[in-house]
């Protein structure tokens, strides 16, 4: 009676559905726990920024002293939010693209809890004044003994899935994911060993930490963001990637240029002179992959402005890609020898860091999260408004950071370089830009409270049951997805789902 042969589409839908089911616990865990750490990190960032122009802000609270709160802010953002959002995206995307169910969800989830434990201990110890004093590696050295094994527990399965995938086309996203999964332990283990365990010159410890800082974005967060963008842009707009060979070229451009960057933070320091300038050169050349990859992805969705306006995933992703192009251009301009003098010790460095971590990576991660969560929870997002507010407030925030920290930092740096002028003059310039940065963090905090709330509601299984994704524009009379209805995406007891999976 029932038709026993399934069409290839049916098989595909069921495979995708089983992949999503197998990964639902770890992926939701990473996204929700990441979102909470994001809120914490942004709040700490607000406090840290406020203390730079209002030093008596929260001065009664011993645990939020400036310096410590700066370190806690960065580390909560990077390891609490950034890493976990990346883990969620990587494991889901690699499983989907390799078309393999995950059999190790339990181990991944355990790894995720251990990672969280490590981050909690680390951030707590930083605020207690027991950090390591190394920028972006302020966790005490022993915390890495928890972080690195949990990393392996979380991501090794994605490497296995890639190797046992069926023969055929390898998506550009898979190459980016593979690279990100391998690059992180390469840079982390190297840095932890050289900075904490090998005894050497203190300047080289600082130099290697600076290299780690740069490589963490260029070789882990960025490839993860690009993997997601290269998946979502064609997927949501319904067209193939504009040029696969350009995509491959862009990948190798990043692989060749990225690992050289980082030591430009030590320009003028008594280390081998080529080191900072090779770093600066790499930061200038990074404009090449930025522009090529950006153009590739934008061309993929060009002409389909409707999709960008409608789809939250695509909108966030494209904003992330545009931030990447912007980062490439700014980096090229700000790392020339004459600019480097001026910006080396100003807010500009911080502004670029936040542009990369938030503007590029976090926006792409938000895009991925808005796409993935409905698929693994089998519910749609509750509120178009929450998503809109999340998007616009974040956009205002990141634009304010670009203007105040990056551009303002340039003027601050000019003031400091003008050695005839009193330092107080330059410092008071910084005060005004500091207010701008604090305001930006305030916007970003509100936007992330919307995001966190929305995500927690989805985690609590309170999402909408619907076959229609939550889109950003009011629904047309004729939705491209067909009439609205109470349809279970993955089929009911009466038979498989009728709509094509998205």
């Amino acid at each position: 009676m029932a038709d026993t042969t399934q069409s290839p589409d049916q098989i595909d839908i069921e495979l995708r559905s089983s992949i999503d089911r197998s990964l639902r616990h770890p992926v939701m865990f990473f996204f929700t726990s990441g979102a909470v750490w994001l809120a914490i990190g942004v709040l700490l960032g607000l406090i840290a920024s406020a203390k730079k122009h209002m030093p008596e802000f929260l001065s009664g609270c011993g645990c939020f002293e400036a310096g410590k709160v700066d370190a806690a802010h960065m580390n909560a953002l990077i390891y609490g939010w950034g890493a976990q959002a990346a883990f969620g995206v990587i494991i889901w995307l690699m499983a989907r693209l390799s078309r393999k169910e995950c059999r190790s969800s339990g181990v991944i989830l355990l790894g995720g809890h251990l990672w969280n434990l490590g981050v909690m201990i680390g951030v707590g110890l930083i605020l207690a004044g027991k950090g390591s004093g190394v920028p972006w590696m302020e966790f005490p050295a022993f915390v890495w003994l928890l972080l690195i094994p949990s990393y392996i527990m979380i991501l090794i399965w994605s490497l296995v899935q890639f190797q046992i995938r069926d023969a055929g086309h390898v998506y550009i996203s898979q190459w980016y994911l593979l690279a990100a999964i391998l690059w992180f332990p390469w840079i982390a283990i190297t840095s932890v060993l050289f900075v904490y365990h090998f005894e050497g010159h203190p300047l080289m410890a600082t130099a290697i930490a600076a290299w780690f800082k740069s490589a963490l974005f260029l070789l882990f967060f960025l490839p993860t963001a690009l993997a997601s963008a290269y998946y979502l842009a064609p997927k949501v707009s319904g067209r193939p990637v504009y040029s696969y060979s350009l995509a491959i070229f862009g990948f190798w451009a990043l692989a060749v240029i990225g690992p050289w960057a980082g030591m430009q933070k030590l320009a003028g320091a008594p280390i081998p002179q080529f080191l900072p300038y090779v770093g600066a050169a790499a930061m200038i050349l990074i404009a090449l992959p930025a522009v090529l990859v950006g153009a590739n992805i934008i061309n993929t969705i060009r002409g389909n402005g409707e999709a960008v306006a409608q789809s939250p995933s695509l909108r966030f992703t494209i904003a992330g890609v545009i931030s990447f192009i912007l980062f490439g251009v700014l980096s090229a301009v700000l790392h020339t020898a004459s600019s480097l003098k001026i910006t080396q010790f100003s807010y500009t460095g911080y502004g670029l860091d936040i542009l990369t971590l938030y503007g590029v990576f976090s926006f792409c991660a938000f895009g991925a999260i808005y796409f993935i969560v409905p698929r693994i929870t089998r519910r749609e997002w509750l509120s178009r408004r929450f998503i809109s507010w999340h998007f616009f407030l974040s956009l205002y925030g990141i634009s304010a950071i670009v203007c105040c920290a990056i551009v303002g930092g340039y003027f601050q740096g000019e003031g400091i370089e003008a050695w005839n002028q009193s330092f107080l003059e330059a410092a008071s310039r910084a005060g005004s830009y500091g207010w701008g940065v604090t305001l930006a963090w305030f916007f970003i905090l509100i936007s992330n409270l919307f995001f966190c709330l929305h995500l927690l509601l989805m985690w609590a299984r309170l999402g909408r049951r619907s076959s229609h994704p939550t889109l950003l524009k009011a629904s047309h009379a004729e939705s491209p997805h067909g009439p609205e209805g109470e349809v279970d995406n993955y089929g009911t007891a009466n038979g498989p789902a009728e709509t094509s999976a998205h």
Partner: protein
Amino acid sequence: MSFKAFIIGLTLTFGLPWVITIVLPYSFMRTLETVNYAGIEEDGGEGPYLPKRDGRIKEGSEIYGQEGCYYCHSQLIRPTYAGSDIWRKDWGGLAKTLDHHDTRRETNAFDYQDEAVAHIGISRVGPDLSNFGRRVTNALTLGGITPEEWVLNHLYNPRAKKGYRGAEDQNLYKKSVCPSKPSLFKTVDASMARAGALKVDAPEGKAIVPTDRARALASYLISLKKDTLHQKLPKALDYGPKTEKAE
């Protein structure tokens, strides 16, 4: 592209910069050759150049890192092609006076000894600290309070109305955004405080005393004297403009 080709490519594109910017420079900097003076007649000194530092460097440097001071302060006087730090008043050293020569110099590779990590710094919200110890000591040569007392007062509350030497100091520090670090101090009964109490306002019958952590940090900050006042640079390291010999 096959998996194997990809892995080989990734390893090579990562490995080359890894060797050239991490491993080799690290090993080179470990075995830095000493720079020697050319002899007493020529150079004013003999043997290897070793900037001496006086204070709780290792401990203080660790505390400096833990307190996050490097987020707002740098410790690097860059050569002139990389920045104008050396020209700024009192950053690279003291200007020439009747009592001493021009003591300014750039940071050199021997400056961060005994520290685990060189706190180059992330930004200059506050001034460069390479010669902070020199500035404080120099400003207080006429007596009043000791450099250590000054630094401890500053750490407790940079904007405090008491504890500083005079009105000029007070005016300058009114606008400081340096954070107060009350966690480095403790409040004890006034009778227990003895001479270590800070000259700041404290609750009735109590006094503020520095913890050992504060003392270590203050000692480290006062040790930051990276200039040539008491230790001339050997010719090999002296990149300053050639001037006539004094006297």
